């Protein structure tokens, strides 16, 4: 009897440490965060948060009141994040897929090139992004040196880290960081394609582009479905890239949602409204993920 009990209990005992950690660092803070979003949690209550007065839906009302400054800037940041995400996910997938397809056949130096392509993924974010911010400096950076001094493409040296150009700079760095992951995943996906498939297609007279379009791309679809979702969540939540690239204050053109919430929380020390914005962000991500999973699984069902 005792032995049976311990056999049933054992898997739970093994899971216990993982469960406790997940509870402590993820689930409890999430619940606390939701509670906080209904409170008037300003700097006076940081050390004594249970005494903060309730705000009802006040924080949410403020966040989505798009006629007032707070709501307006949140909405702006949301749109910036959306366009950033679409660009980064799209370009990362495109570059990753092209590189994966073109490196399918072995050639001299392929291993070395592959290792080089993985470098952006391996480098610590802050070291890599700080290098980019040096390259984007107006007077001493590499980008203006090439564009202005060598190619004479611009009449004046543009600013890259303030103003409207900061959006392109941010997208460039983010794509640089995330395409290797797409490349990695898609390369793995390509390995499942049997070579006979290509041989048969070539025998039937299919050219290289037809082979890619008819064989390679369709067989990448299942991998891409997961990959796009992962890239979407990463890009939408990206904090590190803008934070290191721009320092404490991101320019409005590159005001991603995570950094927006961070700044409005720690500048005003109003954690209540920051939490409300975080909860709204989570709701949006859950909704987007659900819609995406629903759409892709239905599509998959229709294909079968």
């Amino acid at each position, binding site marked *: 009897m005792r032995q049976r009990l311990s056999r*049933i209990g054992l*898997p*739970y005992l*093994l*899971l216990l*440490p*993982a*469960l406790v*950690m*997940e509870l*402590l*660092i*993820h689930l*409890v*803070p999430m619940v*606390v965060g939701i509670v*906080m979003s209904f409170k008037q949690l300003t700097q006076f209550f*940081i*050390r*004594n948060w249970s005494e903060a007065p309730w705000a009802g839906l006040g924080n949410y009302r403020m966040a989505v009141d798009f006629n007032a400054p707070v709501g307006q800037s949140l909405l702006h940041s949301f749109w910036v994040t959306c366009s950033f995400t679409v660009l980064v996910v799209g370009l990362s997938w495109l570059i990753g897929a092209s*590189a994966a397809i*073109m490196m*399918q*056949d072995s050639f001299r130096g392929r291993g070395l*090139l592959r290792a*080089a*392509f*993985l*470098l952006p993924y*391996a*480098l*610590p*974010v*802050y*070291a*890599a992004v700080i*290098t980019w911010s*040096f390259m984007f400096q107006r*007077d001493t950076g*590499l980008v*203006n*040196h090439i564009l202005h*001094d060598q190619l004479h493409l611009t009449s004046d040296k543009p600013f890259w880290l303030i103003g409207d150009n900061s959006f392109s700079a941010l997208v460039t760095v983010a794509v*640089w960081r995330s395409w290797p992951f797409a490349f*990695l*995943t898609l390369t*793995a996906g390509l390995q499942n394609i049997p070579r006979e498939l290509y041989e048969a297609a070539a025998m039937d007279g299919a050219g*290289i582009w037809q082979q890619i379009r008819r064989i390679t791309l369709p067989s990448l679809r299942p991998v891409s479905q997961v990959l796009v979702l992962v890239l979407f*969540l990463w890009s*939408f*939540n990206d*904090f590190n890239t803008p934070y*290191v690239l721009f320092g404490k204050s991101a320019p409005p053109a590159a005001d991603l949602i*995570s950094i927006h*919430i*961070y700044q409005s929380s720690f500048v005003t020390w109003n954690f209540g409204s920051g939490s409300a914005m*975080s909860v709204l*962000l*989570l709701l949006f*991500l859950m909704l987007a993920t659900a819609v995406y999973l629903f759409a892709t699984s239905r599509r998959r069902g229709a294909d079968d």
Partner: protein
Amino acid sequence: MINPPASFRWTRRIFLLVLAVFTLVPVLVMLSSSLKPLQDVQGPFRWIPSTLTFRPYVDIWKTVPLGRYFVNSLIVAGGATVCSVVIAILAAYAVSRYRFKGRRVFTVTVLSTQMFPGILFLLPLFIIFVNVGDSTGIALYGSRGGLILTYLTFSLPFSIWMLVGYFDSIPRDLDEAALVDGCGPIGALVRIIIPAAIPGIVAVAVYAFMTAWGEVLFASVMTNDTTRTLAVGLQGYATQTDVYWNQVMAASLVVSVPVVAGFLLLQRYLVAGLTAGAVK
């Protein structure tokens, strides 16, 4: 692909060349600028240093307490890695070898925490750490221990997932034979499963270390002067008026070496583990 025509081969060459340049330019900038005297990085950009100097590599340790940040990062990332790997091994063993109620719920819940935005935990965790410190005297806010606790959970979901895949690929007969021979379940784990899954465990450890070594958001809020990690410390080379870019580049290179070396050495295992899930 069969008999690619010359046009495809040329497209391929040019595309891969451009991509290699795009990928490697920052690394080359980092390397060349870390060997420049200060005046080289204060004027227009140049590829080749006017005089080759290793001064930045000496100065980085004096301009900011980089040594202390380095030690802090090592303690935090090392601690988080060890804890995360041990916890992940136990959990993955349970999920891989036992059928129990809540098995699916557990995996789905743990994996879905991966999708939550870090900013969502940051504010409450900050409040919790501060308040726990005030009421019990356990210093979590501003301590390396608090950061280790936080970081180990960041790599945990993915580590468990990767290890379940590895453990599943080890034939069950092996550990069942060990059980018959009188090993307990833990004995079977330690003597059979862990030795057989070493590549997977190493990959998970590298992943956990990289995650903790590179984290910025929590490090910027949860540390103070004595516990500051590299992620935040590297910004110290910028003063009000000047940025010592040559030193920034030297420091960036120095802090990248441990993780990049580990990654490139263990690339094969890590890549297999990272992509296994997506392909499944």
